[in-house]
């Protein structure tokens, strides 16, 4: 330390928290105040760089930050108080964890000397969050705050991303105690060095296998989106003329409007995607994890397939399905390396075999092809989603809740770009949709942001309509109102002889009046002919939140649906047909 040209700034722990977030490039901090974080809120108040968004329930803060990350690829940040504030954030942390979404959650904690005494609003947030986050840490010395925050963002955003929790005892943020502030420019951890590049030998093997395949399929998941590899994936698929299927998390990583796209796979996947997977001789899995909603019975899974599996997380490889050619690394550089090899080799797969394969796939496409019965007098949810796609030119951010409406949105919207389909795939969190849409709208104010929801899910975070008013979030809510917890009802129809145990939504509020009570516009749609004018009106009201309460046919089921215990290609195709 020779000359100290710039004097080190002295900041309190509270001020350091906020300054570190600003230095990390955080624009919005989603949160809710309380005793343990009041020093931090006071520091927030005294600056303008980091803007705080006050939600109405901490769960919403986590979903907002999470959805921002899903749309932008950058970690969102959350601040909540200790005890109930922190426990209210738990569902949001778990939601992000299951879908590998980067997020940093700051939770207040009681003063260090009170920890362990069952003090007022004390909960062991490190213990509670341990199994549902990528990592968690607590602050023991205020001067460590900048390094801990840097480390948290680094861990959250690198390797397989995920949420990181930082527990901050109140005495770490006392305004009168100041310390030298320095925000580190990088972090090096001896115990955490995620692999980046894939093994070249394995990549060569994969290319050889791809060129030799006669019935290949590309199965791409959320890792392609979080790994920013959509372009490379699309190029590879088109170079080799591969049929492409996406997981629920991967929708949009390959353009749905392209002829090579054969739809989502898995439980509610398309007939052709599930058939193509089942009969493939080679599966190229990229950023996907063969989870149980995809594979159906693993013992009957794709009997003839050689499996190439590219993933950043070695633990995802050969966890449920054995991979023949595993490649651990970031999907983007691995796919680039494969492309370079292919361009160099100038070889293509056997064209006669590929022609035959595609003929077979086209045949499968005609069997079901996303048909639904639109003849009934009542509005069909599939039709509503198609019309929403039409009016938004297939270019909106679609943030979904969980249930039948989610599957209809996944099947019928047609995502052509990555980061546009935002849903809770792994945890299946009802209540995710509205806060997610808010997080996206706040960060992309000029974009069309749609929340597809059901009358069950929307009521799980309906209070956020107030937050929307405060921050002027012109989200369009498409409430596919079937009067039932539809997905539960579907299972009861199929497995419990239609005994609707607690799946009927009694005493529903008047959603139009409710929207109005919060200061928004509400429109009710009960007849098919009202739909298009209502959508036109809603999307014309650019900056306003419009709540479209759309009454749909309550008898509709989501099809195809894999038959439990069966192979990939064993499906119900309608209420009366099965494979």
């Amino acid at each position, binding site marked *: 330390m020779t000359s100290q040209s710039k004097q080190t700034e002295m900041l309190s722990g509270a001020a350091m928290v906020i300054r570190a977030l600003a230095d990390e490039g955080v624009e919005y901090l989603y949160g809710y105040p309380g005793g343990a974080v009041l020093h931090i809120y006071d520091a927030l108040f005294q600056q303008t760089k980091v803007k705080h968004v006050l939600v109405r329930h901490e769960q919403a803060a986590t979903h907002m930050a999470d959805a921002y990350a899903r749309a932008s690829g950058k970690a969102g940040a959350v601040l909540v108080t200790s005890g109930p504030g922190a426990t209210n954030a738990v569902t949001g942390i778990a939601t992000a964890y299951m879908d590998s979404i980067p997020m940093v959650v700051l939770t207040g904690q009681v003063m260090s000397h009170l920890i362990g005494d069952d003090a007022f609003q004390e909960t062991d947030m490190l213990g509670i969050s341990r199994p549902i986050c990528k990592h968690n840490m607590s602050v023991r010395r205020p001067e460590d705050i900048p390094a801990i925050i840097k480390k948290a963002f680094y861990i959250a955003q690198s390797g397989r991303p995920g949420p990181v929790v930082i527990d901050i005892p109140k005495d770490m943020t006392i305004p009168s105690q100041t310390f030298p502030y320095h925000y580190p420019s990088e972090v090096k951890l001896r*115990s*955490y060095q995620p692999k980046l590049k894939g093994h070249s030998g394995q990549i060569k093997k994969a290319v050889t296998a791809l060129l030799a395949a006669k019935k290949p399929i590309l199965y791409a998941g959320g890792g392609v989106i979080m790994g920013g590899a959509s372009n490379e994936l699309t190029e590879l698929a088109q170079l080799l003329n591969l049929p492409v299927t996406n997981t629920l998390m991967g929708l949009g990583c390959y353009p749905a409007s392209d002829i090579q796209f054969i739809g989502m796979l898995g439980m509610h996947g398309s007939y052709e995607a599930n058939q193509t997977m089942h009969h493939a001789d080679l599966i190229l899995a990229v950023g996907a994890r063969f989870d149980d909603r995809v594979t159906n019975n693993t013992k009957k899974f794709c009997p003839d397939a050689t499996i190439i599996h590219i993933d950043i997380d070695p633990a995802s490889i050969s*966890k449920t399905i054995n991979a023949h050619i595993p490649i651990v690394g970031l999907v983007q550089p691995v796919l680039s390396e494969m492309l370079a090899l292919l361009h160099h080799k100038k070889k293509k797969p056997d064209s006669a075999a590929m022609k035959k394969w595609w003929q077979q796939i086209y045949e499968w496409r005609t069997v079901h092809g996303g048909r639904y019965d639109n003849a009934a007098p009542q509005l069909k949810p599939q039709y509503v989603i198609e019309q929403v796609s039409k009016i938004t030119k297939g270019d909106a951010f679609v943030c979904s809740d969980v249930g039948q409406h989610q599957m209809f949105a996944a099947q019928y919207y047609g995502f052509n770009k990555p980061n546009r389909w935002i849903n809770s795939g792994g945890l299946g969190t009802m209540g995710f949709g509205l806060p997610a849409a808010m997080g996206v709208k706040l960060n992309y104010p000029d974009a069309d942001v749609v929340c597809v929801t059901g009358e069950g899910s929307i009521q799980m975070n309906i209070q956020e309509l107030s937050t929307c008013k405060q921050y002027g979030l012109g989200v369009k809510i498409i409430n596919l109102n079937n009067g039932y917890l539809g997905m539960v009802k579907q299972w009861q129809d199929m497995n419990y002889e239609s005994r609707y145990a607690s799946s009927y939504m009694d005493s529903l509020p008047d959603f139009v009046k409710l929207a109005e009570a919060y200061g928004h516009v509400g429109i009710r749609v009960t007849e098919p002919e009202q739909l298009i004018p209502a959508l036109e009106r809603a999307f014309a009201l650019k900056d306003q939140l419009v709540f479209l309460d759309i009454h749909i046919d309550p008898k509709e089921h989501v099809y195809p649906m894999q038959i439990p215990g069966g192979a990939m290609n064993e499906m119900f195709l309608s209420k009366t047909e099965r494979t």
Partner: protein
Amino acid sequence: MRHIISVLLENESGALARLVGLFAQRGYNIDSLTVAPTEDATLSRLTLVTHGNDQVIEQITKQLHKLIEVVKLTDLNESAHLERELMLIKVKASGAARDEVKRCADIFRGQIIDVTATTYTVQLVGTSDKLDAFIQALAGTTILEVVRSGVSGIARGEKTLAL
């Protein structure tokens, strides 16, 4: 199959809880676990005995690697290794049993480290199998208390698990 996994862990609060939590959460078995700091105070060395088929063991090592605080680990079963466990065992030692326990301890190269008019406390070091065998050999006597340390393991030869 039984596996002995050695782990170097950052000596930080919460790290051990995270590791143990992983086993509980994912339903893996822990047969024994020993932990203590190493010559480098920033590191703990952990020896974990578990069992499962190859796929389970592969998942265990991969999932352990994922924990941020795990610096290095090795499955000792992959090469020649040594394992030792310490046992302290308190037995009734009166009448004929008194000589019998002493003889048995000698045969197993145990040491009697505490004596009362009616009890012996024997210290024994060896593989877990040897400790089991000693307990069986004492079947005719009254065992009052058994304390086992769990296994500590190390690779044979020049191979090391170090930074």
